[in-house]
């Protein structure tokens, strides 16, 4: 018997403190598994109808669910990203094309364009598809947006929860630096309409002109972009 929205939110309130009983853990596992049919439908149609190959994440991790409940004004039943998938494309043009396609293929969608409203520098377009009574979050990122997000997540174990705007004292200023790097990438991708390789080069120049390239972080993210992209081309 699936939990009602009210029961789900009560469960969310109980686990929010971090101490999760065996019974609540079991209820939460059942709740997460209940997203599987919707997830499979969304990923399947993206593959079959749109001919794309998303990477999927059928279940959000328990730790991430608890952290989100603690961090944000949201309830468990309202969480949009319990199940989701990710599509990485080359540039803004392809990103727009994929988002348009998702809106056409699925009946009920909501588009969250984080290129217009970046969060701590994070840019992407999220399309929330609702089907079978459940939301499934489809993240559409360009290669450079995705690389930037992966760098930030990788840094988070050391420098703080950068993804959500928290930096540890030893790493003060990291958030601002990463946001500037993201701005430079976005400028190159959006204003110049460049592919990711050229955009990375342009971002490097933009940062250098701003005299910011001397910081290791900037050199690092641009170096990473060039390195990974070149290696991909060489395959």
């Amino acid at each position: 018997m699936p939990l009602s929205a009210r029961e789900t939110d009560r469960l969310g309130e109980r686990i929010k403190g971090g101490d999760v009983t065996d019974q609540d853990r079991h209820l939460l596992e059942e709740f997460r598994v209940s997203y599987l049919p919707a997830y499979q439908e969304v990923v399947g149609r993206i593959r079959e109808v749109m001919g794309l190959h998303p990477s999927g994440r059928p279940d959000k991790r328990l730790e991430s669910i608890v952290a989100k409940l603690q961090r944000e004004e949201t309830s468990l039943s309202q969480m949009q990203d319990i199940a989701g998938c990710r599509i990485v494309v080359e540039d803004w043009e392809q990103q727009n094309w994929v988002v348009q396609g998702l809106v056409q293929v699925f009946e009920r969608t909501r588009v969250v364009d984080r290129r217009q409203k970046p969060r701590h520098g994070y840019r992407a377009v999220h399309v929330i598809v609702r089907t079978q009574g459940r939301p499934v979050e489809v993240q559409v990122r360009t290669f450079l947006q995705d690389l930037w997000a992966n760098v930030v997540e990788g840094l988070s174990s050391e420098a703080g929860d950068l993804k959500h705007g928290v930096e540890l004292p030893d790493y003060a200023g990291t958030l601002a630096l990463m946001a500037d790097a993201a701005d430079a990438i976005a400028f190159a991708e959006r204003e110049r309409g460049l592919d990711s390789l050229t955009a990375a080069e342009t971002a490097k120049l933009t940062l250098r002109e701003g005299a910011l390239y001397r910081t290791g972080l900037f050199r690092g993210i641009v170096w990473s972009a060039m390195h990974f992209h070149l290696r991909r081309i060489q395959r």
Partner: protein
Amino acid sequence: MRLFLLTYDRRRRALVDTQEFEPGQYGEATRLFFDLERDQPDMEVVLLEAASLDDLKRTHRRYFEDLTGFLQTA
């Protein structure tokens, strides 16, 4: 589409285990995912699905490559 169960050690910034499942084995993969999540709270355990491991490495590269090495020179 194949399922991949990754166990990532955040402190060491290293992937310590990868288990691969045949397409459609959601039940088995999910059970093991929940077990590992419970038994290894210090690890980041994540269940992902992709056409191939190479595709996964492209979209979730932070689990496979150290993207933060440049911090040493910062």
